[in-house]
């Protein structure tokens, strides 16, 4: 009983030490800045940093999100190759059910490709 209580006490002390380890330098730095080092904000200093050049234009602009469809189509066929390789290796010894399942899987994917093609997603604009 005694040891069990003590073990938790040690954990508690360690937690306090850990928090103190993190907070003490922050408080010391804050106190130092308060008493010794005055803050000097300015127009340039508070400006956006861009290699010394003045930043131009707005950062909140629209840009095309079409690439994500390419990403998805690529990923689909990337995964397909992973399944196709063991399918090809064990092709001769496969039961009919597995073969039909694989063909359905392929047809589903090709259907997706046809959909993307007909939608004109494969043409880069």
């Amino acid at each position, binding site marked *: 009983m005694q040891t069990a209580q003590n073990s938790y006490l040690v954990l508690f002390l360690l937690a306090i030490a850990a928090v103190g380890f993190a907070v003490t330098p922050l408080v010391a730095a804050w106190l130092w800045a308060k008493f*010794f*080092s*005055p803050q*000097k904000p*300015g*127009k*340039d*200093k508070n*400006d956006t*940093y861009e*290699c*010394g*050049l*003045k930043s131009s234009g707005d950062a909140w602009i629209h840009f095309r999100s079409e690439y994500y469809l390419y990403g998805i189509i690529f990923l689909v066929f990337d995964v397909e190759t992973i399944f196709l390789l063991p399918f090809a290796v064990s092709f001769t010894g496969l039961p009919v059910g597995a073969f039909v399942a694989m063909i359905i899987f392929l047809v589903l994917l090709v259907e997706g490709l046809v959909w993307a093609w007909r939608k004109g997603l494969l043409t880069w604009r």
Partner: protein
Amino acid sequence: MIDEGLKSELRKQGVYVTSLQELYNWGRANSVWPLTFGLACCAIEMMAASMSRFDLARFGAEVFRPSPRQADLMIVAGTVTKKMAPLVVRLYNQMPEPKYVIAMGACAISGGPFKQGYNVLKGIDRYLPVDVAIPGCPPRPEALIHAIMTLQEKIRNQDLTGPNRPRHLNADVEGEYPVPAYGKTDLEPPKNPAVWQPPTLKR
């Protein structure tokens, strides 16, 4: 305040005493982080100084920061063209206090071999307060190391309080320097009179 004689006497007995000022300056002098900022061929020597052969890390100054937000020291390494000068000053303004400037090489000091060029700034000290100037074209890495040691010496001797305290501890002194603009034929203003006055001939 403890005097130097007593301090060294105590040190012989194995008792180390220090002051807050000494401790503060010791920490600051040994962690001068330069800005990754190469303008011309001097930058090659600067890179060499930070690599293993010359090892700037021995002086706590190997952490080249690619952002002015985290840098203490601007090594103006190379020719400052008039096109680049406003950018240099703006970068300096964007660095947090305390900040220092090393003018590395003949070009950064005076324009160097390109002094007569229409497009070359004749010394970055026309716009920025240069702490250490390194002569040479380009200076060897040892010269840069010596400049950093000189800067460390300067930092160690700075006062925390009093009228001679450095700029970053003085709330009355402005932290930013005016950025020159591109004029019709020259930068405007061509110099910052608060930092640099043209030398006068004494006859």
